[in-house]
């Protein structure tokens, strides 16, 4: 088969010169998915009737939240000056939790459309994504979207683009919603994005940028072929996991999966090989041919590293088995989710699960509750600490309750991030104050334009988890945007603070706090718990303690009355059902040392307001 264009059903082999692989990057809500939909629609990959709003966000949750969790790909056939061009659009996750996934998706491309909202202008994620795209040497096509908005100000946005080092004259004005400028975007992709450079005759090297579990075919591995080619029947090897599989099917995304029999250098597609779990197909890994392996893998692979940990416990202890099965099923499709069994005195049997970030945690938690009908108690999320012990051993502590006693510890290190916050200049003071409160170290302040500034701080990741984003939004009236990336570990004066109810430590409520802030946090947490824990038959003392030193104390007073006095005219059934329902409600609480604790209490630390 020659490599000359051959439009035959089931597959097409194009010269790499006629292939364009690109991605769309944007700050959240700047219209990335809408633009993608328009591109798909106008190239006829889907008819208008087939379009459901935002085709690429295929999970319900993604559509509801307006975010992309999984990367996706779609192949567009575009006629350019009488010649057909194969354009592969690789959609990237739009959240800082998935930065690594975004970088892999970008690595599979030669160009990126940078979407900027015509009213909001350049935001923190715009910059973070742009820098990442530049790191991968991608051609950038700036697109100013939403020009139909009454408060659109493309001129100002162009100035901002110049300020961040782009050529303002290259910006394309678009309203994805109204279909304005779509053709110009498509032409720009052909003109400005370089065609893929690879060696079609070299041993196979394909980059995995995503994978997805299909109940019938097993894992579908999403790849970009860099060198060589891949055919049905080939035995492939994953270079990081060293697993080998025989390819049973391959194809492209139109966006429905469409089978073809070979993928060549420069192309984007998927293959199936009866793979049972996505754990074998790590994003960023390199696929090669087992018979003719490439000497070296593609650069940049790293194993998924959970950053945020939380205890997941079934409200009803009988659901433990169901929870494990549900987590296993989610893991089939999510290599970054980790979990291992854990036992809590307070909560019984559950799992300590690791997530890429808070959003990832929330998504998994919601899917467990919605799709698997589980009722869960989630403990407050925490980061993982690196603890150097007196005997020189180093521990990774992902559960505050397991933090060793201070006498055994030499030092504790916590993960740090470099955060960029773009805010109207009016709120610079408020933002800096927030960052100081969160133990931030000032790094830089620069002006995007006379009205907007970018503030950079180094912050402990753990501090960002306590409603940092909400605080940032509320202190800047929603105008600030925020992005961060991990920069490593730093030692800090951290201590474990325990919560005691009725004199007993509730292990699931222990938190790691900075010593200087322990008193305040303890007081706020004890107060919050006093509100959340219903009155019991007896008075319940709440104490926050570091070791044996009590730093805060509150009391839930004893319940005075619990009596149903209304007589329902002989309707005993109703009266009984009410009591049965209450009894059921009590069952949903966890009982620790005679104290019944409602589910919400275990997340109380997250709702503690910070001083302002």
């Amino acid at each position, binding site marked *: 088969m020659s490599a000359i264009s051959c439009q035959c059903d089931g597959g097409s082999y194009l010269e790499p010169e006629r292939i364009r692989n690109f991605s769309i990057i944007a700050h959240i809500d700047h219209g990335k998915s809408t633009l993608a939909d328009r591109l798909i629609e106008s190239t006829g990959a889907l008819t208008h009737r087939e379009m459901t709003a935002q085709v690429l966000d295929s999970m319900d949750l993604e559509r509801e939240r307006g975010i992309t969790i999984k990367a996706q790909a779609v192949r567009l056939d575009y006629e350019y000056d009488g010649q057909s061009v194969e354009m592969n659009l690789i959609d990237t996750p739009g959240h800082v939790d998935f930065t690594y996934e975004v970088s892999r998706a970008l690595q599979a491309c030669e160009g990126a459309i940078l979407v900027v909202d015509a009213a909001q202008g350049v935001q923190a994620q715009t910059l973070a994504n742009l820098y990442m795209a530049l790191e991968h040497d991608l051609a950038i096509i700036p697109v100013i979207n939403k020009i139909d908005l009454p408060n659109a100000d493309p001129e100002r946005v162009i100035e901002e683009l110049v300020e961040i080092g782009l050529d303002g004259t290259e910006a394309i004005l678009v309203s994805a919603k109204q279909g304005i400028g779509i053709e110009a975007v498509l032409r720009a992709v052909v003109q400005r994005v370089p065609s893929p450079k690879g060696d079609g005759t070299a041993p196979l090297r394909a980059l995995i940028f995503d994978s997805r579990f299909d109940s019938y075919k097993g894992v579908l591995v999403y790849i970009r072929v860099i060198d060589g080619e891949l055919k049905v029947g080939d035995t492939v090897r994953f270079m990081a996991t060293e697993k080998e599989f025989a390819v049973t099917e391959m194809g492209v995304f139109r966006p429905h999966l469409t089978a073809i029999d070979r993928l060549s250098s420069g192309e984007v597609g998927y293959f199936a090989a009866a793979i049972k779990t996505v754990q074998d197909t790590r994003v960023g890994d390199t696929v090669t041919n087992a018979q003719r392996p490439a000497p070296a893998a593609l650069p940049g692979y790293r194993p998924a590293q959970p950053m945020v940990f939380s205890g997941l416990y079934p409200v*009803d202890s009988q659901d433990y088995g169901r929870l494990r099965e549900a987590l296993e099923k989610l893991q089939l499709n999510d290599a970054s989710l980790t979990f291992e069994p854990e036992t809590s005195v307070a909560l019984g049997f559950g799992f300590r699960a690791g997530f890429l970030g808070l959003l990832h945690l929330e998504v998994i938690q919601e899917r467990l509750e919605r799709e698997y009908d589980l009722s869960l108690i989630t403990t407050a999320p925490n980061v993982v600490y690196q603890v150097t012990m007196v005997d020189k051993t180093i521990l990774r502590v992902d559960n505050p309750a397991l933090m060793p006693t201070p006498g055994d510890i030499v030092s504790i290190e916590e993960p740090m991030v470099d955060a960029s916050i773009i805010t109207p200049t009016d709120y610079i003071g408020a933002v800096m104050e927030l960052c100081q409160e969160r133990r931030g170290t000032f790094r830089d302040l620069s002006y995007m334009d006379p009205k907007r500034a970018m503030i950079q701080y180094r912050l402990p990741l753990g501090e960002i988890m306590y409603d940092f984003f909400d605080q940032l939004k509320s202190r800047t009236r929603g105008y600030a945007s925020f992005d961060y990336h991990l920069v490593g570990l730093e030692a800090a004066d951290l201590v474990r603070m325990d919560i005691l109810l009725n004199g007993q430590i509730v292990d699931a409520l222990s938190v790691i706090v900075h010593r200087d802030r322990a008193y305040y946090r303890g007081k706020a947490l004890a107060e919050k718990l006093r509100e959340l824990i219903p*009155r019991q*038959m007896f008075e319940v003392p709440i104490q926050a303690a570091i070791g044996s030193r009590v730093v805060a104390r509150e009391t839930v007073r004893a*319940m*005075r*009355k*619990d*009596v*149903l*006095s*209304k*007589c329902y*005219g*002989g*309707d*005993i*059934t109703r009266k*009984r059902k009410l*009591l*049965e329902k*209450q*009894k*059921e409600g*009590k*069952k949903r609480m966890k009982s620790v040392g005679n104290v019944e604790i409602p589910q919400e209490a275990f997340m109380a630390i997250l709702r503690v307001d910070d001083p302002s």
Partner: protein
Amino acid sequence: MIEDDFLLTDWGLYVHIPFCQARCTYCDFNTVTHMGVDDHQSYMDALAAEWERAILPSGRLISVFFGGGTPSLVDPSLIGRFLDVVRERVREFGPDVEVTLEANPGTVTREHFVKLRQVGVNRLSIGAQAMQESHLKALNRIHGVTDIRRAVSDARDAGFDNVSLDAIYGLPAQSFAEWQETLTELLKLKPDHLSLYRLQVEEGTPLADGVRKGTLIMPDDDRMADMADFAEATLDDRGFVHYEISNWSRPGFDSRHNQLYWTLNSYLGLGAGAHSYHEGRRWWNYRGVRRYIETQRAGEPALDDGEILSHLEQMREYVWLGLRRQRGVNRERFHTKFHEHLDEVFETTVAELTDLGLVESQDAILKLTGRGRDLANTVFRKFMAEVAP
């Protein structure tokens, strides 16, 4: 002793009168407004028809209770005619049968009470609810404070020597002092019996709407508890017997009807939405008033649904319902009724509750302690079966 309590076979008759002039903001009972005198007539006929066809328990009828709704809206002659129909099937219907009628102070006159007394009603339950015009108005009651005083005085004049008053505490924005006033003023009317209810916010009522919207503010738990404690102490002081969780009486004036529910004695409920119980079976009628009238006219059953209690469920209910009464649950009576020993069936529950100081035993009697009465629901829930989620 068993003897001074009801016989196991004593039974009661509940007659539901759904008519009201206006609906109170807190009410979720089966009531209708805007129905005329003609409807009263056909409804009372329907009640008679249902009664005629009902299978009656074999024991003594010891109580007839006209509840509502507002039974006092119905002309006394219609009540009288209905009682005559009842008497036709109950031979031993003597003056010792407790015949109670609920009366709204805004619907009654002295003549009205005289007639009711004449047709055989011997106990009145007057819904006072509060002694402040502002609260009565806020609850959408159709009467004022003076109507309450007048109604009680008219009842006495008409010869009623067993008069009960209802009051509600924990009204929106109600102060402790207002509740003190309500209770003190009601006591001045020298009632023989008092039913004191804590206001329950029921879904779908205007009260619930107001609470959700924040236009109505319920007193906090502590103020409610203070109100309940005040009532308890005051009534004890005045010689009232706290014979049931929400009911107090002068000695000898405890309501029989009220207690039949708590002893698993049989009761037959007639009327729209009325509930009945007999030997482990509970059932209830359709709530729709027109539908009820039509089915009775057509000679069809008004049955909506029911449930059958297992032997164990009956034992559970017998205990937790019985604990509502001051006299508690009699173990001998339990054994007579169920042929099982209470302490064997509920061994761990009774032990746990005793340890917690919520129940106590005096010979054959198992009863709530003072603290147990405050936390009655906590006690009752212990006797509930575990239900599947």
